[in-house]
């Protein structure tokens, strides 16, 4: 059997006696794009932070590309990357300098060529010599994505990558993510509040609520199971506790 790209086993995170993540287990195969859905405080960001090794689980374990993220995370980190609107690139550095720094941190060979590819892919040629802190939200997102793909990660984690973007740029970002996944065979885990985004991009959706996995399946299967037309309706059912499930969850 092929090793999963990400395997979470009975993952628990407790803050001050309250479980933020409460015993979740899942595996994500290589070459897959999975959405992580849930309301505020459902445990999505906590889960992603534990997958990246930024947060120690209270119990349970996460393995990424076979590496235990508590004990041997450095062997996995060179093959991973992350995008979130809640962390920034150094603002005083120009876009070119940031890409150079992160390319060297990931020990990217032929860095100038790789940056050239990303510059074309994300259309950031005109931004290269501008300080990153002076870019608009949309420009910053493009640069953050370029940084996230600089090491051609096998595992890419995205925490609300299109938050605060206008629909046009958000759509453009989704198209780039789809293309990267299809070209690289990477495993992508996408945490989002945007149901259209998840419906469009993801072949599998994990819905979290109060730190637990409430449901898990393909978008089509979830729509069928809840008897709804959109994932947004499914999400609202789950969030409000109106399960509305028309068939038993397997």
């Amino acid at each position, binding site marked *: 059997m092929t090793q999963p790209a990400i395997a979470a086993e009975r993952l628990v995170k407790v803050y001050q006696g309250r479980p933020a993540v409460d015993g979740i287990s899942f595996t994500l195969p290589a070459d897959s794009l999975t959405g992580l859905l849930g309301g505020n405080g459902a445990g999505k*960001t906590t889960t992603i932070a534990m997958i990246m090794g930024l947060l120690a689980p209270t119990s349970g374990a996460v393995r990424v590309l076979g590496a235990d993220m508590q004990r041997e995370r*450095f062997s996995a980190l060179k093959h991973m*990357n992350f995008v979130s609107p809640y*962390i*920034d*690139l150094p603002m005083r550095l*120009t876009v070119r300098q940031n890409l150079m720094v992160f390319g*060297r941190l990931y020990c990217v060979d032929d860095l100038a060529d790789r940056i050239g590819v990303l510059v074309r892919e994300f259309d950031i040629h005109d931004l290269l010599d501008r300080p990153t802190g002076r870019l608009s939200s949309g420009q910053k997102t493009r640069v953050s994505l370029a940084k996230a793909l600089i090491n051609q990660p096998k595992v890419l984690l995205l925490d609300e990558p299109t938050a605060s973007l206008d629909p046009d740029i958000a759509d453009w970002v989704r198209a780039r993510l789809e293309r990267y996944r299809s070209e690289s065979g990477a495993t992508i885990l996408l945490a989002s509040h945007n149901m259209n985004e998840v419906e469009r991009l993801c072949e599998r959706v994990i819905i979290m609520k109060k730190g637990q996995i409430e449901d898990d399946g393909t978008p089509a299967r979830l729509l069928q199971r809840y008897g709804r037309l959109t994932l947004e309706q499914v999400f609202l059912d789950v969030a409000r506790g109106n399960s509305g499930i028309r068939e038993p969850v397997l």
Partner: protein
Amino acid sequence: MLPAAIRAYVNPFFDRETAMRDSMQTALSDFTDSLRRIAAMVGRYSYVMRGSWPRLAELVYWPAVNMLMWGFVQTYIGQKAGYFAQAGGTFIGAMLLWDILFRGQLGFSISFLEETWSRNLANLLISPLRPVELAIAMMIMSLIRLAIGIVPVSIVANVFFGFNVYGMGIALAAFFMNLILTGWAVGILVSGAILRNGLGAESLAWTVMTLFMPLACVFYPVAVLPSWLQTAAWMLPPTYVFEGMRALLIDHQFRADLMIEAFALNLVLFIAGAKGFAKLMDAARRNGTLLQTGE
């Protein structure tokens, strides 16, 4: 083709040799990657420094102001008091050495603060950059910042007050090494505190070293302190350096014994700093503060 019996005898040696060569190549590749990551971080801090002339000017400004002030104090007292006239340059020397200690720590801590100010720490912590590589990069930056700040000021001290700090020779190297080690050890600990507590702990970076100032006896001998405080003073490595400096400038004697004791204390302090950082990092990883390093 070798006969089977000979092959069976010889192959394990070749296998072992191949395995050893492979592991050496892996180790070499890991080492090269490590150097690349350190260079990347030094490059990152250099970009910030080069891109901001006020930051560059600040590196020279305070050491220059301090040096001028203490230089004139030294000149004044030297004219009035025979002892100080003999002890030429103790104030200027103390000020320069104090700046090595203070700015060594500050140079280290500011690199770390750059990451928290720019909300970039999580990007680094999810990269293959190891904490020890980050620490080495910050040490290199601390040396670069010190060189930018102290070298011009030491030249001014020579031109204005006739005090040649480089005239201390090998003693200066011993003083420098001990002071910078203390600065780095404290800097590592402060970085851990910022990691654990966010920017709420930023003020530590600017103030923690001033706690050393009265006890390290920068401008006066340890004998001035009450005896119970002298015990505490001798627990700090910089005390040995400043006593050693006075022995050199007043008695013209290099006290190697003081430097060895300071080095031993520094080793303890450095190990304690590194262990403290690791514990604070673990605590931050448990408490979830690595994603929120703001205020």
